[in-house]
């Protein structure tokens, strides 16, 4: 998993809770990387899971809520860091289509070793799109947070209906309907 996800997660803990908690979590989790993350590095996704679970224990906030919240935070960070990949004039659905067809293509050019989730979109009409998420990492809630925040970014009111396609949070479908 790309290092930016880890650095953004630690930044979220810093901002939302406290830098002390961030360091305590890292010490407590005894991570193989020692938590010395850099945005351009690549790390084992299980370290993130360990951190989230530890944070959940400390804060008594359920893991799914934390991951989804992190998804929202991550979207804003990504847009800030890579504005060239997000065309603000786009429609929400155009953007979601471009995740697999454009953004992931560009990410692979920069980081050929990146293991990205597989995203596919089915759009039956102008107001409804079903996004299928599939990954080796259990981050369907992260995807949900990213989708929700992208709707905010594109100023589109939507209803998202989630259906899990597996039990381990590795596959899910999101039926997104624009609200009139």
């Amino acid at each position, binding site marked *: 998993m790309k290092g930016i996800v880890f650095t953004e997660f630690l930044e979220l803990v810093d901002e939302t809770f406290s*830098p002390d908690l961030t*360091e305590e979590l890292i010490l407590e989790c005894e991570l193989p990387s020692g938590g*010395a993350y850099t945005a*351009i*590095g690549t790390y084992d996704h299980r370290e993130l899971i360990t951190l989230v679970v530890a944070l959940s224990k400390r804060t008594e906030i359920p893991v799914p809520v934390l991951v989804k919240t992190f998804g929202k935070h991550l979207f804003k960070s990504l847009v800030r860091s890579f504005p060239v990949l997000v065309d603000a004039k786009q429609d929400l659905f155009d953007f979601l289509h471009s995740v697999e067809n454009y953004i992931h293509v560009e990410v692979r050019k920069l980081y050929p070793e990146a293991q990205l989730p597989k995203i596919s979109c089915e759009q039956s009409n102008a107001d409804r799109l079903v996004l299928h998420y599939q990954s080796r990492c259990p981050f369907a809630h992260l995807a949900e947070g990213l989708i929700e925040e992208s709707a905010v970014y594109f100023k589109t009111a939507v209803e998202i209906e989630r259906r899990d396609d597996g039990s381990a949070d590795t596959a899910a479908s999101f039926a997104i309907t624009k609200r009139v």
Partner: protein
Amino acid sequence: MDQNLLLHRYNREKRARQAAEELMEKKSYELFLAHNNLHKHADQFAAQSEQLESILENAGVAILIADGGGAVMRFNQHSLELFPQDILSKGLSIIDLFAEEHQPTATHLVTCGSSSGESLDLKGVNHAGSLFPMEVTVSKISLHEEHHTIWICRDLSQREKAEARRRELEKELSQAQKMEALGTLASGIAHEINTPIQFVQDNIRFLQESFEDIVGLLGKYRQAVSVLEATQKEALLSGFNAADKEADLDFLKEELPECHEQSLEGIQRIGKIVSAIKEFSHPGNGEDVDIDVNEAIKTTSIVSHNQWKYVADLTTDLAPDLHPIKGNPGDFNQVVLNLIVNAAHAIEEKKSPELGAIHISTSATSTGLLLEISDTGCGIAEDHLKRIYDPFFTTKEVGKGTGQGLAITYNIISKKLGGTIHVETEEGTGTTFRLSIPTHARQGILS
């Protein structure tokens, strides 16, 4: 923040920075390599582009690119040598480069291109406004997702001139072959003419002497009439009798009509040979005409008489109801001559004490006619059979054959007259050549 935690963060951030620096270093190096690679590819691409440009510009054909509406977008140097410059440089319609009669075809090609790379023979307009023949291939391509066409136009003027020259040379060669054949036959023909000339000459000398005798006898008769009343009757009678004896009127009465007849026959024979030679050697005007096959066989038999008369009897069985074939009479005569001479040589080679036989027959078939030439010669060995139509293949002794006869025969029958040739042979027994040739009417259908 707790001091220990702060120290922990400091160390962690420091390690992260170091890791980031190492990664940056690695990425920079990768970028450097990628940049070098890109440079190399760009150079290769530029070289390839230059090469393609050079090929395009120096191609011996006009290459043009037109857009979907037919406007000329790009053209090579050779195009400027063929077509009007203003049409090309102003990007006008490519259709204007074609003769009016071919503009509808060009319009179709702008839309569809030529089917599966097929070449079309069309007329173009050159910079002087004259028409010229060209071969055109049009390919449909997509440039920037728009329909375009690539036109490759080859000027055929030079090729057509070369083709005309080739036809002229072929005609000259055919005539030279005929002359060569005549040259080979010349001594025989001279002998053929010499024999009747000899006896016609003897007969004329005989007529001359006989005439002198008759004139002498007539003088005596006149003298007798004038002096019938004179006294020297005895002397006169004696002179009269002597002249009568000298003239031998009874003998002359018997011999002179036969002498006249023989001389006339001799002269007719010479006339026949001379007209056969004339017929045989006539160059023609290069165009195909109707050929009377039977007449050609008769003519060639006469011309070649001296080639076969010492070794064989030549008989014919010619069907009277044959349609003419269309072709060059000289070519056909050459075929018959080659086959007769080969037959005579085969009979000679057999070294039989008896006279051999050459038989020529013609008959009508459903598609044309069948010409058969058989001989009782030595036949053709099986291992030679598949090579007999190869140029320069001969089994004859040096000076007797050049190995061209059957090669020329095959070429004329199969390529020029649209016929087929089959051979049937048995070593020591003889050979039959069967020529199947479509007649005029049939050739018309075929063409």
